[in-house]
């Protein structure tokens, strides 16, 4: 009985519940946080919209179609940012020695780090992504079938996993970079920016980096193409959007290797 799920998750639930409570307890400041967070989402959408204010089509997609790409990618990113975003604080933890405290607790380090916080304010930003997604799904001409519904669900889960993996990957790299934390921002936040674009406008080096190595094109763009029935670029097969789970698995392989190497470096005296 001691090994039931409830018992095993008790430590994590205790921390998360109290983090959530404490954020909501300062009502005024939580409201401001929610509003700013929503504004972030709105402005990110506006960045794309102003481009379509000038042209009808970019990379073969119209604005209504891009809404679907943006909605998928931004919803997944916001949810990952809410639950994994504080992995970015690792350099601070390393400098202050807070990480050593995690070593003194009987849980795996990565799980402790991930469950050490949750940023509820990012729900507001996720809401922007969700609205964009719903509008995108409604205004576009989608030949709905059970497969379409399934792919939508697969894409959301995989996209969330990919962005979450990116945060963990970056966390592992922080053990080596410490001061150079911004280097990983290029790929985590750069990845988010890339994920909301029509990837058909990329050149080959960008495809190599954000298409496959960090598989950002699989979070929104490629699944959206299949949903819309639009042909994939670079001569990729039609069903490439269905490979999102593979891309997510690959991201997590990278994430865990990076984390493992980072921790080994830390215990080996990087601190």
């Amino acid at each position, binding site marked *: 009985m*001691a090994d039931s799920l409830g*018992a095993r998750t*008790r*430590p994590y*639930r*205790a*921390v998360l519940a*109290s983090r959530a409570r*404490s954020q909501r307890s300062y009502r005024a400041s939580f409201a401001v946080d929610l509003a700013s967070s929503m504004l972030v989402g709105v402005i990110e959408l506006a960045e794309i919209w102003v481009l379509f204010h000038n042209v009808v089509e970019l990379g073969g997609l119209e604005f209504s179609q891009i809404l679907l790409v943006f909605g998928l990618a931004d919803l997944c990113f916001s949810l990952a940012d809410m639950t994994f975003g504080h992995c970015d604080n690792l350099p601070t933890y390393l400098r*202050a*020695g*807070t990480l*050593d*405290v995690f*070593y*003194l*607790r*009987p*849980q*795996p380090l990565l799980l402790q780090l991930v469950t050490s916080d949750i940023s509820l304010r990012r729900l507001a930003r996720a809401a922007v992504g969700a609205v964009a997604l719903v509008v995108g799904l409604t205004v576009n001409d989608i030949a709905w079938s059970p497969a379409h519904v399934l792919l939508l669900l697969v894409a959301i889960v995989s996209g969330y996993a990919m962005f979450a993996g990116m945060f963990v990957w970056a966390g592992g790299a922080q053990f080596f970079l410490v001061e150079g934390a911004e280097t990983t921002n290029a790929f985590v936040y750069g990845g988010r920016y890339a994920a909301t674009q029509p990837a058909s406008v990329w050149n080959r080096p960008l495809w190599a980096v954000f298409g496959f190595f960090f598989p950002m094109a699989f979070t929104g763009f490629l699944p959206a193409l299949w949903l819309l029935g639009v042909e994939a670029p670079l001569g990729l097969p039609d069903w490439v959007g269905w490979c999102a789970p593979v891309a997510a698995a690959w991201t997590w392989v990278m994430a865990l290797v990076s984390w493992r190497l980072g921790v080994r470096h830390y*215990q*080996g*005296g990087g*601190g």
Partner: protein
Amino acid sequence: MTEPIIETTGLTREFKVRDGLKRRTVLAVDDLTLRIEPGEAVGYIGANGAGKSTTIKMLTGILVPTQGSVTTCGLRPVQDRRRLARQVGVVFGQRSQLWWDLPVRESFRILAAIHDLSAAAEKERTDELVERLEMAEFLGTPVRQLSLGQRMRAEMAAALLHSPRLVILDEPTIGLDVLSKQRLREFLVAERRTHGTTLLLTTHDMGDVERLCDRILVIDRGRLAYDGDLPGLSRTVGAERVLVVDLAESIEDLTGIPGTRHLGSEGHGLRQRLAFDAEATTAARVLASVSERAEVLDLTVEEPDIEDVVRRIYAARR
């Protein structure tokens, strides 16, 4: 013979440091072999950078040794870190394990969940700690609003909540006022008496060592420089104690008393300070000699300063 609670053999830890463009290797802990039995209270002292923190990090599985072996509570700290965490409690004077924006009580609740204490065990242990560390008045206060003394008491309770067999304290009394120090020391003595807890503490405060420890380890540049009790330590280094006497009348400097050195006088000789070697004479004998010259109104004996002891040990080894 019982199993030791800490055992190290040839424990060594190197660090590579960048010195400009060159890299060189620094030995933080060098061939350390020691054995600590359950129930002991050990003071681990040494200058800054002597290797104390590195040792503690290896004992708790935060750092991997370069060479040698270490077992803590019969476990391998790195491989068995999670099992070890249930048996060890650590108080870092400088880094907090509490949640700064939460009330103290809430931090305890989370820690109880982390260590998977049953509701009954949680209540019993929390009540015990709250009473002994006199924390009732600030249980509802967020950690960031606590005074340093209050915070250290809460930190102590946080580290001991899961009733660890081994408690490691890194500078537990640093920056505290006399009263707070006293309270923490009394608590640790009582904790040891009731639960048989093993204590290992690093400190710069001789008072901590005197009141809490029955064994002292001195570390010098990563090597063990002394292992024994406090009187033995004073003997080894010949550290002097100082007798301070307040006299009824002002007299000349108290020079020429056997086994003593006159350190100074205040108030025209009303208060005088004499250093004496505990090996050569005793406080009583010195006092008797002083009383022959003038009436003694009050006296205090100052213990050797820990930094001084460490300095002397280091000097003797070089």
